[in-house]
């Protein structure tokens, strides 16, 4: 079946511009995660959506970052007034549900969006 898709695959923007990154999770997956990966670094958690619950925004690095998930499916990560330090690969992952009795889901990742801020 179809996996997680993200668009665009690459985005080059100028400092100060706003950008929107899109994630289409696997159909039926209730949980959705956004991560950021800078060159040579690990994954930095940004935000988590679970069903209709309020999202966990504890990983967002500043108020320039925001995300929405419409209808429990597609999600958009918006970065306002981009800065050069925002350059990174932005990864989206979805999971079916929180496994019973545990807090660890198997996450399925998209290919990422490579953002370059000039």
């Amino acid at each position, binding site marked *: 079946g179809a996996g*997680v898709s993200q668009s665009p695959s690459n985005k080059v923007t100028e400092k100060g511009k706003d950008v929107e990154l899109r994630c289409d999770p696997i159909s039926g997956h209730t949980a959705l995660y956004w991560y950021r990966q800078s060159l040579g670094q690990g994954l930095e*958690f940004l935000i988590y959506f679970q069903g209709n619950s309020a999202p966990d925004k504890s990983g967002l690095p500043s108020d320039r970052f925001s995300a929405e998930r419409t209808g429990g499916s597609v999600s958009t990560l918006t970065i306002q007034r981009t800065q050069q330090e925002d350059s990174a690969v932005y990864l989206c992952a979805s999971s079916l549900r929180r496994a019973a009795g*545990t807090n*660890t889901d*198997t*996450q399925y990742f998209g*290919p*990422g969006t490579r953002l370059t801020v000039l």
Partner: protein
Amino acid sequence: LAKTTQPISMDSYEGQEVNITCSHNNIATNDYITWYQQFPSQGPRFIIQGYKTKVTNEVASLFIPADRKSSTLSLPRVSLSDTAVYYCLGTSRGSYIPTFGRGTSLIVHP
């Protein structure tokens, strides 16, 4: 957030067994320990998951001691295509947010 600690890099040769150990001192009591693999320009993908003792699948084995403060991913007879970054993943008590860390960059040489 839980802190996981892994070696930054490892080198091996084709046909050898590779063991990558991760420490996760603050893992939540009811959490599983999960390992992911990431190739360049791709998102991570699930390899194996376990709670304690040993788990084996077609790709790898996972060894978890009784105290669950560490885990060891074992890759039997690696090939060049196993060159990737390997992440162990856990969550801390009271949190459901997974922590990936920087991972271990495994390079397999001919």
